[in-house]
């Protein structure tokens, strides 16, 4: 199998606030040294709590922000330092779907204009004309092609998300980064959009990086899952291994915190309750970043940061994996 994306040592530090005029600026270590690969046509899930760096990772990969260090290799080409104009032809293959279906569509543009924008920006004239292609795209994502001339406010949240998906799909990309694509939607609509994305992934053989905080949603979409905590990947494994046999204590805690719908299953599940909140990424704990909330932490956890190592079928960054 060949890789569509390879990320090495990917790091993003944002400048924080300054405490005095000549003092040093704080550094927010949003993403710190990520290594992972995505195969062609593969759906990988990126999960973690707010502030873990999952969205920053998505924006780094799509080059919407510049990395502090590390490399991003897309489809065999190093795109880490490409300029905006050099990135433009690559964006045809590398698209993003945003979380907020209200903020990510220009309210003054019609749906037709929005979905056609990748053609316009890329200077591409699709076969049979832009309008015909846009209407095809609207049909693919389950919208009425006759709504070509309508404005975003005339659509519901779920329908708007479909417009965003049609736009991402326009140039038949090889990789789509979907940043929390269903978290703003109602439960009954979420399932529709998850099913749609899954069908598209299979039909067009698109690789997906599916960023979400909801472990159950990711389980229904991704073939492989990476769990992030405070800017690091703590565990990567294929879906079934990760959900049935989590190796990192954080993954285990995260899974056990998901509320159970079946009242009879609630008592039978192991409950791990983490105390406290995620530490501040300006001043992350030394060694393993999870150690302050971990029930297994020992001295070594504070002194040495664990590397992501192969243990069984999973890659885990922990001194005391399960």
């Amino acid at each position, binding site marked *: 199998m060949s890789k569509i994306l390879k990320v090495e040592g990917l790091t993003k530090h944002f400048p924080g606030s300054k405490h005095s005029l000549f003092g040093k600026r704080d550094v927010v270590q949003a993403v710190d040294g990520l290594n992972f690969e995505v195969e062609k046509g593969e759906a990988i899930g990126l999960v973690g709590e707010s502030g873990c760096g999952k969205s920053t990772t998505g924006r780094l990969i799509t080059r919407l922000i510049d990395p502090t260090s590390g490399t991003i290799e897309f489809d065999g080409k190093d795109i880490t330092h490409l300029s905006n104009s050099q990135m433009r032809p690559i964006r045809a293959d590398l698209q993003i779907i945003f979380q907020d279906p209200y903020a990510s569509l220009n309210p003054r543009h019609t749906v037709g204009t929005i979905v056609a924008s990748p053609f316009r920006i890329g200077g591409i004239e699709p076969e049979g004309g832009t309008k015909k292609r846009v209407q095809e795209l609207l049909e693919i994502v389950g919208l009425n092609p006759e709504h070509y001339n309508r404005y975003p406010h005339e659509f519901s949240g779920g329908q708007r998300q479909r417009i965003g998906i049609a736009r991402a799909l326009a140039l038949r990309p090889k990789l789509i980064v979907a940043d929390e694509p269903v978290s703003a939607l109602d*439960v*009954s*609509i979420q399932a529709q959009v998850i099913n749609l994305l899954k069908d598209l992934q299979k039909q067009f053989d698109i690789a997906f990086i599916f960023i979400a905080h909801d472990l159950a949603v990711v389980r229904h979409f991704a073939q492989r899952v990476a769990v992030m905590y405070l800017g690091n990947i703590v565990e990567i494994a294929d879906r079934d291994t990760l959900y049935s046999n989590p190796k990192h204590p954080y993954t285990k805690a995260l899974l056990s915190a*998901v509320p159970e719908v*079946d009242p*009879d*299953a609630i008592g039978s599940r192991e409950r791990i309750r983490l105390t406290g909140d995620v530490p501040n990424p300006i001043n992350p704990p030394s060694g393993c970043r999870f150690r302050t909330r971990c029930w297994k932490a020992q001295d070594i956890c504070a002194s040495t940061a664990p590397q992501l190592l192969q243990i069984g079928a999973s890659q885990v960054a922990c001194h005391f994996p399960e």
Partner: protein
Amino acid sequence: MSKFLEVKNLSVSFPTEDGVVRAVDDLSFSLEKGKTLGIVGESGSGKSVTSLAILGLHAGGSAQVGGQILIGGQDINAMEESEVRLLRGKLMSMIFQDALASLHPYYTVGNQIAEAYLVHNKVSKSVAKKRAIEMLDRVGIPDPQKRVDDFPHQFSGGMRQRAMIAMALSCNPSLLIADEPTTALDVTVQAQIIDLLRDLQKEFNTAIILITHDLGVVAETADDILLMYAGKEIEYGTVRDVLQKPQHPYGWGLLTSIPRLTGDPNKSLAAIQGTPPSLISVPNGCAFHPRCTYVSRVGAACSTLIPELLPISAGAHHLVRCHLQPATREEIFMNQVGPNL
């Protein structure tokens, strides 16, 4: 059994330029002390409007509130605004979804908790502050003596929600309404807050109305569930009834459409087609019928006649608003819904 809270035929409508929005329509339910009722529904189903009505917070706005809201025998809806104000905080209290927006950024957390306590108790400021520290300690804020003087922005999301809970419970209210209390929080923090609410309920014997769209959160906290759709209650029963043996096609749709941690992940989710209706033009008959898969099993009644909320069998506590015959419903549940749960 004494029902502490009884809501009878509550309706709330908002006149707008485009027509009357019937946000809540003929809603009735009751709740005992120490019990939790989960009100579940999607955006626009009327769950938050119901909770604001129970607190008497629609007064002064354009909303028209009908029906009775009896709390401990007193009808909130028939009272003057000034009378309700005296009860709010003491008899009933509320925690909101967005803790940052609900706390005042210019006042310390302790100040805001003490304020609620001072309104209802004739005590000095220092006693009220002591109470604030005590409450912060009770909801699990570390180092409460120091943190009481912090401003809301110095708290994390989970701590702010804890501070809100401390404020809401400072006067020992008998009824607590929690409107999506954990939606803005991360799962690990959500689990902490759910545990906290459950412990506090045991300690104070509070009646809780939990408003949420998350079936998992209700399953872990509530005793009864009220399922709402387009301003109407469409199913009402115990958690076990509604989550394990749902009777309404909308409940079936919800339960089979949510992604879970168990079951076959490769199977497509059984999504409900279409979108929730606009409350200005609610479909005739059963509001859910345009999205319902089983309309053909009933016939014309679904689009012409609003079904009544009836017990699923004589004398049952489990109520449903649907035209399907009990036998047909049982058959559909056994063959098509049950296997997917």
